[in-house]
């Protein structure tokens, strides 16, 4: 693992921390927070700060430091958390996200000057920080935390005779820079001994960055322990051999210095004051010399082979306060190991390879089953055992990729705040089912269509406060997000309580744009669906939020690419609900393999309710072409899969074949007519778009046990097509030929 890999982990942790802070601040906004909520927000920002320092992202570190200061005051009860302050913290969190993205390399670091100033001003009686002061002068967009360090380094770089002056005067000079009231006695300085773990550099640790942070706090290097460095021919350049003793001014709290090492974990051991320097843990390197005690006397030795003093004549340290109990970072880590070792990060590429492998395993198992069936070994116990094991592995592998949808829902409050700023419409958010889990890829690709839908709901759906008040609604609109697992699919609903779709306006626009004929008679649902037509927009003016007529088209395409469907339910004056039905996973599913003429097709099992062979009396004609099946008193349309495939020799009468009763999201039930059911098993979904092209009535393809390609039926589209005015996609016969 190289430094970049480690930094990527930091960015992943940043995302997690940002989600936690966002969720915490939302709880504060809703008034449902407690002390632990504030602690969690503080920890999130603090951990980003620690990593930013470790990886040298100075702008991010400076900003998080300022943000954290205010959060610390809130945590300690110095500042009361009111509505305005929560709004400020939410803004600060939004900017923190932009900062993290900039550190990640996505764009320039944001202008945080004004916000940092506001954060400082929100602190009780706080002097403006150096950063905020820089902000007020406008000298630098990003205060350089190395500024102070530069000054110290200049001081250190001064001629030897200047440097050899009494260290106490140096200390006094440093104290002047922090503007401590002269009347208060200066607390005694104290020592910290820092021993990076020998193998820590392999984890990306760079001790000099920690030292830089210590210097920024006013720390001064007293001793560099070089004794553990072996002769050059026995040195391992990837092992760390150095240790340091730094002296810190008494005004600096120990916790401030320990904070620097929060992110370091086990890669460094610390000791304080007159405790001995922690020993080196270089493997196979005998500790011939005991690690030196960081006594000041030992540091005066000028020999290169001994600890290197920074000041040639170190000043005796004033009476050291009674030593506090020693607690090293390593010891802290050791005590928490059992709690922190419960999870492991895995590169997504490795996980994808596992999923691919499981997919191939499923295909191989199907082939083996087919082969054994041909040899009359279809019912052997080992085959059933293999089937169970493969299914278990597949389910566990899929569970690795499952993530709660809260990671998508969690970004919505920020989006609503942005939209409120742009439109003046303040919208309440009501969320349910955020723990519903679905595939990581689906989650990632869901973000864009959901953003479009939410922008659209706020921009077009929800009225302005004045309009809402006029019609007797709450001036603040409500956006509802709901997710649930239903019939093997994930159903996500995005609802607003706005004005609803103006169907007359939509139809008029569609006719004007030539999307439908002027004399067309469309149902309400068909009119609603027109908003998904390419280039359709009813917005009188194109805004920067929505209204370009591309968003809704993209939404439908994105959802379709995910193997999902989108439907609209809108009531004038009451609001609009968009319902997205998505597959649980994109890779493997259960299906019923049916025979239609000379073709095998797969019907996803999630849609199947039952299958039956009807009596002649159960099927009634409707007009000249359509037939209805009487299922225990309810009539459902019969849809011939043969018509879709153009297969040869399929049955044409329902009572001679098998009817598979299916349920759809928005068009109720239907009976799919097939010749026979041949199998029911897991199948691996292969994208048709990637290998051929998108076809409306086909959800994908798979490889059967006999090695042949079978098409996966898009049940929703087929039933919708058969119930509406459209015919069944004529291109599928061609597709079967191609397959």
């Amino acid at each position: 693992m190289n430094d970049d890999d480690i930094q990527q982990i930091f960015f992943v942790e940043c995302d997690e921390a940002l989600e936690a802070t966002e969720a915490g601040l939302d709880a504060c906004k809703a008034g449902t927070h407690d002390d632990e909520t504030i602690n969690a927000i503080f920890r999130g920002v603090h951990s980003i700060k620690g990593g930013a320092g470790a990886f040298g992202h100075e702008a991010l570190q400076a900003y998080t430091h300022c943000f954290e200061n205010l959060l610390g005051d809130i945590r300690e009860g110095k500042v009361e958390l009111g509505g305005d302050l929560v709004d400020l913290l939410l803004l600060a969190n939004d900017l923190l996200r932009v900062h993290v993205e900039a550190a990640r390399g996505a764009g320039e670091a944001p202008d945080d000057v004004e916000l940092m100033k506001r954060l400082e001003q929100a602190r009780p009686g706080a002097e403006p920080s150096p950063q905020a002061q820089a902000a007020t002068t406008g000298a630098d967009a990003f205060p350089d935390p190395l500024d102070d360090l530069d000054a110290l380094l200049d001081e250190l770089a001064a001629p030897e005779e200047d440097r050899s002056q009494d260290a106490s005067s140096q200390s006094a000079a440093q104290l002047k820079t922090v503007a401590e009231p002269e009347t208060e006695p200066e607390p005694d300085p104290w020592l910290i001994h820092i021993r990076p773990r020998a193998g820590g550099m392999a984890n990306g640790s760079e001790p000099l960055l920690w030292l830089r942070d210590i210097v920024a706090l006013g720390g001064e290097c007293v001793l560099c322990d070089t004794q553990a460095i072996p002769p050059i021919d026995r040195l391992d350049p990837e092992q760390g051999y150095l240790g340091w003793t730094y002296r810190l001014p008494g005004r600096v709290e120990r916790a401030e210095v320990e904070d620097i090492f929060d992110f370091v974990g086990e890669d460094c051991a610390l000791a304080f004051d007159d405790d001995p320097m922690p020993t080196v843990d270089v493997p196979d390197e005998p500790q011939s010399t005991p690690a030196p005690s960081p006594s000041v006397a030992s540091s005066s030795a000028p020999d290169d082979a001994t600890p290197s003093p920074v000041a040639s004549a170190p000043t005796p340290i004033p009476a050291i306060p009674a030593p506090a109990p020693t607690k090293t970072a390593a010891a802290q880590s050791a005590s928490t190991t059992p709690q922190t070792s419960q999870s492991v990060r895995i590169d997504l590429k490795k996980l994808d390879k596992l999923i691919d492998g499981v997919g191939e395993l499923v295909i191989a198992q199907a082939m083996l089953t087919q082969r054994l069936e041909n040899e009359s070994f279809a019912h052997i116990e080992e085959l059933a055992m293999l089937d169970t094991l493969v299914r278990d592995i597949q389910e566990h592998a899929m569970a690795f990729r499952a993530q709660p949808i809260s990671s998508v829902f969690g970004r919505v409050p920020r989006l609503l705040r942005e939209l409120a700023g742009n439109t003046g419409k303040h919208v309440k958010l009501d969320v349910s089912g955020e723990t519903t889990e679905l595939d990581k890829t689906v989650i990632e690709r869901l973000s864009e269509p959901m953003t479009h839908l939410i922008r659209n709901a706020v921009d077009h759906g929800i009225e302005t406060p004045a309009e809402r008040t006029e019609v007797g609604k709450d001036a603040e609109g409500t956006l509802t997000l709901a997710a649930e697992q239903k019939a093997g699919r994930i159903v996500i609903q995005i609802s607003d309580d706005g004005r609803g779709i103006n169907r007359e306006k939509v139809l008029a626009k569609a006719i004007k744009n030539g999307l439908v004929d002027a004399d067309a008679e469309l149902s309400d649902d068909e009119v609603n669906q027109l908003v998904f037509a390419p280039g359709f927009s009813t917005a009188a003016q194109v805004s920067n939020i929505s209204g370009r007529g591309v968003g809704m088209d993209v939404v439908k395409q994105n959802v379709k690419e995910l193997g999902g469907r989108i439907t609209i339910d809108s009531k004038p004056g009451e609001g609009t609900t968009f319902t997205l039905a998505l597959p649980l996973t994109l890779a493997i599913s259960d299906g019923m393999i049916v025979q239609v003429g000379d073709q095998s097709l797969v019907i996803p099992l999630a849609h199947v309710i039952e299958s039956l062979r009807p009596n002649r009396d159960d099927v009634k004609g409707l007009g000249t072409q359509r037939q209805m099946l009487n299922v225990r008193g309810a009539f459902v349309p019969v849809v011939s899969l043969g018509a879709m495939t153009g297969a040869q020799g399929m049955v044409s009468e329902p009572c001679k074949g098998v009817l598979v009763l299916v349920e759809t999201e928005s068009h109720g039930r239907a009976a799919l007519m097939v010749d026979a059911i041949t199998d029911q098993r897991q199948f691996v979904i292969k994208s048709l778009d990637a290998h051929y092209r998108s076809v409306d009535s086909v959800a994908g393809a798979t490889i059967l046990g006999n090695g042949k390609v079978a098409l996966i039926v898009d049940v929703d589209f087929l039933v919708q097509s058969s119930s509406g005015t459209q015919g069944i996609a004529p291109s599928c016969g061609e597709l079967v030929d191609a397959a």
Partner: protein
Amino acid sequence: MNTLSLPASCDRAATKALYTDICEALGPAPLAIDASAVEKIGQAMLQVLVSANRSDGGIVVTAPSQAFCEAAKLAGLDHLIASEAA
């Protein structure tokens, strides 16, 4: 006097790559280390230089860049720079 130039980025990977060259270049006479191009340097390279300085001939750091000087002082190893004058 043998001379070896340090690259702009003296991180762990660069140290690993240069380590053998440094070992081979060391001899009875001081090895000149040209640190003028150094923009970034970490613990790994500094400790290699400390170890090299203890060899028979030692090293002399020549024309150290500001980044080199700052890092050496931060680490309390500014005697490496002082060796320039030696």
